[in-house]
C-alpha cells in the first residue's frame, strides 16, 4: 500500500478531477432535486398553493385519485414502445444490411430531417391531419363515415410512433451495422434457414441496440406530456399531464411530488423486470450459439 508510486497517486487525482464535473452534475441536477421532491411529497399544500412543511402520508394515500392517468400511461407507453420496435426493426435492418450506400444515405437523411422542425409544431400539425378535415375526410370518400381519430387513444398512439420512431431506429441500426456478415454466411452454409439465421444470429447480436432503443423510448414515454395534451384533448391523460396540472393549475406541490415519486418507482421496477428478462434471454441464446 505504502509503496504506491507518485505516478499512481497523480493518476488517481487526475481521475478524480476529471470525474468532478460529472459528479457535480449528478449532485446538483439529479440528487438534489430528487431529494427536494421526496421531502415535498411528505408535506402539505400551502393555503395559496405551493408547499408547506409537514410530515404526512396523506399525499400517497391520495394517489388512487390519479389511477386513470397511471393506467393510461402504463398501457400506452409499453404499447407505443412495442409498435416503435416492430416498425423500426425492419427499417433499421434494411438500412444496415440490405441498402446500398446511396439509398442508405438518403434514408438516413429522411429519418433525421424532421428533427430540424420543433417537435411541438410537428405534433400540432397532426391535429389537422387527424382532425375532421384530414384523414377522416379521406376515409369518408371511400365509404367509412364518421370516423373519429383526434382526441382518442389511437391519435395519441400515432403521435407517439411518429415522434419516437427515430429514437428506436438509430440504436438498432448501429448494432446491426456492426454485424459481421460472414456469420450470416456461416449460418446458411451450416444449413440454417433464413428464419433460423435471423432468430439465432441476427436478433441476438442486435439485442443491445434493441434494448437501448426500447429503454430510451419507454423512459421518455412514461413522462410524455405534449402528445396526450395536443392529440388526446385531455381525454387521454398521462401521468405527465397530471403532474403539469398539479404544479401549474392546482399548485399542489406535495401531491405532485408524490405522483412524481410514484412514477419513478414504477419506472425503476418496470425497467428492472425488463432488463432481467432480456439478460436471461441473452444468456440462453449465448449458450445456444456456442
Amino acid at each position: 500500500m505504502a509503496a504506491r508510486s507518485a505516478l499512481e497517486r497523480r493518476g488517481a487525482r487526475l481521475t478524480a478531477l476529471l470525474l468532478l464535473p460529472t459528479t457535480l452534475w449528478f449532485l446538483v441536477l439529479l440528487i438534489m432535486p430528487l431529494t427536494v421532491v421526496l421531502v415535498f411529497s411528505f408535506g402539505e399544500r400551502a393555503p395559496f398553493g405551493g408547499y408547506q412543511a409537514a410530515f404526512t402520508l396523506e399525499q400517497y394515500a391520495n394517489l388512487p385519485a390519479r389511477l386513470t392517468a397511471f393506467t393510461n400511461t402504463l398501457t400506452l407507453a409499453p404499447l407505443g414502445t412495442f409498435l416503435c420496435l416492430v416498425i423500426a426493426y425492419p427499417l433499421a435492418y434494411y438500412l444496415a444490411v440490405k441498402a446500398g450506400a446511396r439509398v442508405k444515405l438518403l434514408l438516413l437523411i429522411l429519418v433525421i430531417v424532421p428533427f430540424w422542425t420543433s417537435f411541438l409544431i410537428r405534433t400540432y400539425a397532426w391535429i389537422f391531419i387527424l382532425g375532421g378535415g384530414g384523414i377522416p375526410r379521406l376515409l369518408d370518400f371511400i365509404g367509412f363515415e364518421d370516423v373519429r381519430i383526434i382526441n382518442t387513444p389511437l391519435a395519441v398512439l400515432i403521435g407517439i410512433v411518429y415522434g419516437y420512431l427515430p429514437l428506436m431506429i438509430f440504436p438498432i441500426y448501429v448494432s446491426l451495422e456492426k454485424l459481421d456478415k460472414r456469420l450470416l454466411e456461416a449460418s446458411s452454409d451450416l444449413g440454417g434457414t433464413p428464419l433460423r439465421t435471423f432468430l439465432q444470429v441476427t436478433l441476438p447480436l442486435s439485442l443491445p441496440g434493441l434494448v437501448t432503443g426500447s429503454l430510451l423510448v419507454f423512459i421518455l414515454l412514461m413522462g410524455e406530456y405534449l402528445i396526450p395534451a395536443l392529440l388526446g384533448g385531455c381525454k387521454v391523460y398521462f401521468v405527465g399531464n397530471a403532474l403539469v396540472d398539479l404544479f401549474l393549475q392546482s399548485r399542489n406541490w406535495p401531491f405532485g411530488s408524490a405522483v412524481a415519486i410514484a412514477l419513478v418507482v414504477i419506472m425503476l421496477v418496470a425497467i428492472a423486470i425488463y432488463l432481467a428478462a432480456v439478460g436471461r434471454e441473452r444468456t440462453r441464446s449465448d449458450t445456444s450459439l456456442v
Partner: protein
Amino acid sequence: MSDKKFPDAIDAKEFMYQLRRYQKGSVSRRHFLGVTGLGVATAVMASAVPGLGRSGKAWAASDIGDRVSIATWPNYYNPENYEQFTKMTGADVRISVFGSNEEMLAKLQAGGTGWDVIVPTNYTISTYVELDLFQPLDLARLPNFEESAYIARFIEPGTVGGKVYAVPKNWGTTGFVINRDKLTMTVDSWKTFWDVTRGEASSRVMVHDYQLTTIGNALKYFGYSFNSVDPGELADAEKLLIDSKPHLFAISSDYQPSMRSTDAWMSIAWTGDGLQLHRDMPQIDYVLGKEGGELWSDFYAIPKSAPHLDAAYAFIDFLLDPEVNAKEVAVHGYPSPDNRTTALLPEEMTSDPIMYPAKELLDPLEFGAAVTLTDPLRAEIMARFKSA
C-alpha cells in the same frame, strides 16, 4: 453625441460599420441610434403619428431597453400595435400566451419568468398583491390612464388597499359558442348546454381547461353560484362534469381551431372568441346562459420581478392610448371599459349584441371571486375531472 440637431447623413459603408459594431456589442444602442440618425428618425416618426407623440411622452425617443415581455391570453391583441411599439421604441415585444389564471400565478410564484407586463383577471389581483408579486403602479408614468374615463365597476378590482396595482385592459363575458348548422334545438341556458352535451351534441363539445369557467358553469346547471366553494354544491358539479366527460370532444381553452374545422359544435367561450368566430362563420352564435355565468375584466399589471420596468410602463401607456386601444378592440372584439376608446369604435361594433349584451342577460352575471383561485377543492375537482 453632437451639438447639431440632426447628425450628418452617413453613407452605406459607414452605416454597416456602425451596425456591425452595435451587433458585436462594441457600442451601445444609444450610440448606434445617435450616429446613424435612426434615433432622431424614430422620434420624428413618433411625433408624426397622431395621438402618440403628445407632450410628456419622453419614452418614444428615450432608451427603454431592447425588449418587453408580456403574459397574456390567446387571440387577445392586435399584432400591428405591437409592431408599431417596436418600431417606435426599439423594444421587441415577447408574448407568452396562457389558458388559465392559475397557470400564470403558478409560474410567477415559481419565479424566473422574466415578464414585464401581465394580464390578470379581476378576481386574481388581490391574491397577487397578498403574495407580494405585483408592484403598485406609479400613475404619473401612465398619463393615458384617466380614471374618470372608465366604467367604475370594471376598474375597481385593480385597486387593493387604496393602491392601484393594475389598470384595465378589457371586459367581457363567458358564454358559449354554438354551430347552428349542426345544432338547431333551443340552447339558451347552462342547463340546456350540459343536457345537449350529453345528448345530441355528444362528442362535439369543448369546455375550458380552466377551473373558474368550467366548474362555474357546471354549478350554474344546478342554479348554484358561479363562485361556490361549498363542498356539497361542488360535489354535484363534479358529478355532472365526470358524467359529461365521455361526451366531450376535448378540454381546452384553445377552442377556435376546432370550432372552425367543425370538429367541435359547441364550446364554452369568451366574448372576443365568440365575435371572431361569428364574424368569419355566421352560423356560429355566441350565447349567454340565462341563469347567469361570468362577467369579468382583465388588467395590465407589472410583476415585482419585472426586469424591464421602463419598457413595461411605456408599453402599458402606449396600449392605454384610446386610439391604439380602439385598434386593439377592432381586432380582438373584447369591449373596452374606457369610454374614450369606445367612442372611437365603429357603430357596428358598439351596437353588436355579442360585445354589448342586453341588460337582462348582463344582470344575472357574476364577477369571479378571489376565493375560487386559492380554494384547494376547486383545483382538485378540475384535476380529477381531467384525469377521470
